[in-house]
């Protein structure tokens, strides 16, 4: 497989005029490289991985779900809502994620997020209360009890 990668890298260097090229896995390991003498493959790979992940921290709020608070109608009466804010509020239904609200409202990310945080601050909406939580492992009651007594005994 690596041989094929070299061909692609060579071709890339020829076409782009770059000095060298490294194919890097997501965790920053070099898979294949064509580099000028003296360049350290591992260093270049680690730097590449660092640069690539700089742009997008995974900790983003796009997956969040909000719901209208209990007395949202009272609050909404007291504050003057602009048309686009009404649109966003309408889309807050306990099911739509932030990314869905952005998509359906056709508003920009920034405006939607700012509006949602404004709503959150004045209590019109709240974070979805999770009813369902999921365990990523099939724990039995028996095993859980074992873990509990083990920890108590440490």
């Amino acid at each position: 497989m690596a041989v094929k990668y070299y061909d692609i890298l060579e071709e890339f260097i020829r076409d782009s005029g770059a000095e060298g090229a490294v194919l890097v896995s997501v965790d920053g390991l070099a898979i294949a490289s064509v580099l000028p003498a003296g360049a350290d493959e591992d260093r270049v790979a680690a730097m590449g991985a660092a640069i690539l992940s700089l742009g997008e921290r995974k900790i983003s709020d796009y997956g969040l779900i909000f719901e209208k608070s209990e007395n949202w109608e009272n609050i909404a009466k007291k504050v003057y809502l602009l048309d686009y804010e009404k649109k966003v509020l309408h889309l807050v239904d306990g099911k739509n994620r932030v990314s869905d609200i952005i998509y359906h409202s056709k508003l920009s990310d920034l405006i939607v997020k700012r509006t949602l945080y404004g709503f959150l601050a004045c209590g019109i909406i709240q974070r979805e209360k999770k009813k369902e939580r999921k365990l990523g492992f099939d724990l039995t009651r028996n095993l859980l009890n074992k873990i509990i007594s083990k920890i108590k005994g440490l």
Partner: protein
Amino acid sequence: MAEKKIKIVVSGPYAAGKTQFINTISEIETVKTEAKTTKEGEKEKKDHTTVAMDFGRIKIDDEHTLYLFGTPGQARFDFMWDILGKGMVGLVVLVDSTDPATFHEARRIINYFESRYPAPFVVGCNKQDLKGAWSPEDIRTALDLGEEIKVLPLVATDKENVKRVLLELLDEIGKYI
């Protein structure tokens, strides 16, 4: 027989006490992958930071081992968060109670896991031994957490404290079996 791993993730902002928490409770010396910090701001708080991740393990029986995984701090290791989130049975989110500037980051971390891997979680308000530590109730308000979430006082250097937080989490986990 293949060992079965039961995963608990320990997360929180930089310097919240994740490495300390895992060290205090682990049976073996924690496998640390620390390196000298290079960023200027980070140096003031401590001179080592967790580069990839740290984990501790506690053998439960011949078949099962409990793993505590700390989330790495640097953005370039964000891909690890998904790997850790998948398959965890529970999450401990630590905050440095004396450093309100990091509470916002803690909230974002909770958002991250809540929207992707909604396992049971508890919040540990760490460094309660220090002057100026915010109370758990004030931290609950700052993080906008409902009454259904446990927000617990913690001194991560103290074993009994760490045990209590883990037992509270296991109690939460028990509600979903």
